[in-house]
């Protein structure tokens, strides 16, 4: 498909919708920011899009639990459409609050094609605080994830109070590893997976920062690739500007991967 269309969900406290849409645009797609109620009331249809993004934010103020209320909204109103979207071979990404929604709606990790039951959670950071800091992520080369293809390590910011990833059981934890569903893990400067704070900013089990479903087309991550679309987003840009002035930020690759995949396969 030449003209890839991405839909970026908004509403009820989602707040990274502008820059997420911008990421898709810079990657060559057309992007629409659409209020979830306009999908529920069928003013928009998922059929018109190949990529779906649940952006970061504070849906419902993180009341009750982060992402939970919005996840329920997805579950009660759009679960059929979402499952069809995935089975049509299309792409879904959830970032930060959007990742929390995907996990809490059961769309991730989607083991055995079950996109309806919650198999993990994202809960309060061990620090007990909102953490706004840059982290380094190591990608899993064996992971099928479409969005992380060609990425080895990447610098991105985290900005969350509830980012600690916990699988529901030891079995699920083991399967995430053995089925290569872990796309990103927090690592140190040398690229070694790191468990200690603040390298792992929230205390996630096994330093898991992002996971995908077995198809590799549904993906969620806590750090924000849409906050590193430009070189100047990186806090070290000013130190390195002589060697690398201006230009693209590392996070844009995540959006490019999605758009390129959609162009080739959809």
């Amino acid at each position, binding site marked *: 498909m030449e003209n890839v269309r991405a839909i970026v969900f*908004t*509403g*009820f*406290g989602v*707040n*990274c919708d*502008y*820059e997420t849409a*911008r990421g898709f645009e810079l990657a060559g797609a057309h992007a629409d920011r659409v*209020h979830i*109620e*306009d999908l529920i*009331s069928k003013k928009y249809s998922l059929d018109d899009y190949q990529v779906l993004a649940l952006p*970061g934010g*504070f849906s*419902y*103020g*993180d*009341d*009750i*639990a982060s992402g*939970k*209320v919005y996840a*329920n909204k997805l579950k*009660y109103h759009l679960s059929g459409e979402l499952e069809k979207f995935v089975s049509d071979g299309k792409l879904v990404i959830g970032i930060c609050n959007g990742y929390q929604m995907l996990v809490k709606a059961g769309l991730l990790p989607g083991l055995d094609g079950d996109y309806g039951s*919650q198999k*993990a*959670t994202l*809960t*309060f950071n*061990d*620090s*007990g*605080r*909102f*953490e*706004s*800091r840059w982290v380094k992520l190591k990608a899993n080369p064996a992971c099928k994830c479409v969005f992380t293809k060609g990425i080895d390590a990447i610098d991105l*910011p985290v*900005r969350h109070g509830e980012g*600690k990833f*916990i*699988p*529901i059981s030891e079995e699920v934890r083991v399967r995430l590893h053995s089925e290569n569903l872990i796309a990103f893990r927090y690592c140190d400067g040398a690229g070694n997976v790191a468990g200690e704070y603040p390298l792992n900013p929230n*205390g996630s089990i096994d330093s898991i920062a992002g996971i995908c479903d077995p198809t590799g087309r549904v993906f969620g991550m806590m750090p*924000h690739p*849409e*906050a590193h*679309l*430009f*070189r*100047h*987003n990186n*806090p*070290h840009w*000013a*130190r390195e*500007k002589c060697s690398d*002035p*201006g230009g693209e930020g590392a996070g844009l690759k995540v959006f490019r991967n999605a758009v390129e995949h959609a162009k080739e396969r959809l």
Partner: protein
Amino acid sequence: MAERIYVGFREGVTDAAGNAVLRRVKDDFGFPAASVRTVDVYTFDCALSPQELERLAGGLFADPVVQVFSVGKPLAAGFDWIVEVGFKPGVTDNAGKTSREAAEEMLGRKLGGDVYTSRQYLFRGGMTRGQVESVSSRLLANDLIERRMISDAASWNPESGFGLIVPKVVLAHEPEVGEVDLKVRNKTLLKISSERLLALDLREMKAIQKHFRDPVVREGRAKLGLPANPTDVEIECLAQTWSEHCKHKIFNAAIRYDDGSGKARRINSLFRSCIRKSTERTAKKVDWLVSVFVDNAGVFRFNDSWNLAMKVETHNAPSALDPYGGALTGIVGVNRDVMGTGRGARLVANTDVFCFADPAWKKEVPPRLHHPKRVFEGVRRGVEHGGNKLGIPTVNGSIVFDDRYLGRPLVYCGTVGIMPSAVCGADSSEKTVKPGDLAVMVGGRVGRDGIHGATFSSQELNEVSPVTAVQLGDPITQKRMMDFLLEARDLCMFKALTDNGAGGLSSSVGEMAQLSGGCEIMLDAPPLKYAGLNPWEILVSESQERMTVAVSPEKFGEFKALADRRGVECTAVGKFTDSGDFVCTYGGKTVAFIPMKFLHGGVPQMKLSARWEERRNPEPEMPDEQDQTQNLSALLSRLNVCSKEYVVRQYDHEVQGGSAVKPLMGAQNDGPSDAAVVRPLLESGEGVVVSHGICPRYSDIDAYWMAACAVDEALRNYVATGGSLSRVACLDNFCWCDPVKSEKTPDGEFKLAQLVRANKALYDFTVAYRMPPISGKDSMKNDYVVGGVKISIPPTLLISAVGKIGDVYKAVTVDAKKAGDLVYVLGVTRSELGGSEYYAMKGFVGNSVPKVDAKAAYKLYRALEKAVSRGLLASCHDCSDGGLGVALAETAFSGMLGMQLDLRLVPREGAERNDSLLFSESQSRFVATVSPENAQKFEKAMKGNQFARIGEVNGSMRLVAKGLNGANAIDADIAELKKAWKRTLGW
């Protein structure tokens, strides 16, 4: 029938909130707590079947992975003490509101009653009841807005727990309209003003009395069935509109100013003669000012298609009573101001500056005040929730510490917005209101919260400060409303909007009505949080998250339909007219009738007297130590200098994706930036540069130089980072102690003279720097008076600078970049330790306050701007608190590089001691590093200014500086210096 759902963490799962409380109990209270666990409680005041409750508990409230739940029966077990904290009736319960909405969604039906949230804290360890009591009242709950209950394990009933508490508001009261008898003597007039919290003085009360005595007015009123006396609706409306908060009476006063020579001169309005005059002078020379001092925020041109709007507010009085709620409403309130500018702006950055007393305060805390650490934490969290939840990056700020902020913390919150220069084919900065347009209230509902906010903040904090003035913000209701309004703006559904802030509907509708020439408000129209409010309360309530929009009747249908789809409440509460009158009705009857002219122009001008006298402080006599390393390290640990990373890391400064210079930069992402640079439009490489200046300590010597230094500091931070001098505006926020002479304030004339001098400096230096004030605010009664104890803040002026950088990649950061780079000092160091952080550390104030040489400074800034735009600087950092010594240390450790320096090379006039060379706070100075290949070009660009190369960056990890006699004055490991700098607030 009410029911409770309890949710707690599974065994073995970290309870982060519990652990955070445990840390505070141990560190701040020193009590022997062993563990703290939390249980969240949801109380349903409605009928639900057992199956429904189970479904809600398992499918909504408890996380199946980490939490367990119980319906009806408490979860709490295995504790020594349990404390439950919930809201008092009528206090905004955001999570409760979400819970109701989410439960209704899940069950597919309306609940028919509210949901209330509370939290239980389960303590283990050998604490006494007194200790638990103290933790619950001083850490867990604020008795003003929250209820708390305590039980020990022995008296705990495991079946019913604390029982069912439903904090529902029941006002057993028939709304009524009262009459206020003004046919009384002066004494009674004053009594009416103080008893009703009107905050009006005798001249103002008499002006109202005179208006209602006017036979023509009486005749008109009689025709409408109104009494000769004002109704309570009218008197409250006048009090709100005429409040210091809304009308800035002190800034508009006629002042007789004696500069100490005995010769007095008359100043007619400081605002007009100093602030606006500066703007008007610069406006003649620049073409980028769009709208100044007429709207909620100042507006200037960003580029051909976009304008920027900025406003900075203070929320001091509410933050003293409830630091969390006060700060939260502060930030979301200023958000609405900018959102409500012109036809509406999208918000792109927040700023925050706080002034607190020492958080390690050991002495007793006077009645009605909170411990400074609680204030600090509450304010921090309030701004965190406001900024983060609304998705606005908090990009610039600082915290100033002085023990005189114990009585009133200062909470400055700023917001930058961006708007297309044209909206629906019209100038976006112009509001249009036509007679017949509907006055539509959008957002939250009206309750008793926030009644008398405007009048309360116009008074000192005293025994009878009203608790209703405290409100809690609701960021998500506001986010929904703002998203909706931007959507409606771009669909051309309205032509004017404004914030419902101080004074509520009376102010928002009243101010917009000036554009059409009148209005009529139906006080029975606004949706209420609960029944029983009197009409006057509905008119002046400052319940949050509301804006007023002027919508033409033919557009209202689609406006309302879109609001419904976005889950935003909106109600037409009246209409705009051209009758010339402000009219309110209730139940079809007229209950207020005030001519617009009297409402907005009737307040008599205050007449005040100011007398300046120079005050001499003891001049310190100290030996000049050869080795200043210890002093430098100690200064870096001082509250006013130390790293604020603890706060910065809890604020989202990245959201919206445009950040270029963040609050913390450098080799380890922890160096303190001078200013923030963000790109508000991801399609354009242009950036907004925001910085500020604040230096209240200099007020102890001369408020003129305090203000001059604040202006200079704001601009030098701005220019150090790369901001353009040809497009920079500023905002002034004055926080003063009461400057009106009275029994309570015998030194009012002196304090007013300080205000006069600060304004004169503001004029002198903003004109010299071509940095026009575009918006401002004043908060004039920052005193605490209880039981004979009076605490007054030092006169404090915050100057925020906002402007533009053409290309964000040209921005410069503070950290040293490379070994081999050359270190320069720009500007002259004088012996100006008066009011410095160094003197404060040694226990002195002194008299040699830093002065600003505007001409030399501006020339230097021009040269620096040119050098920065040519990419000649590797780093640049301004010298402020702690002087050159602190700036050099910060430059070095931010880059994790050493320096070898010779202080004898520093350009100086009269600073012939190592300590004054290092720590003098002379203004208009920078530390810059430059790569050797750029050195010649840099020196050429700086020609004609005072500057010198004083050494070199190296890879040694040591900061070494030769003193005046050639021996080392500083020799320190930069990692140690950084540690000292990070230790103090490394919570």
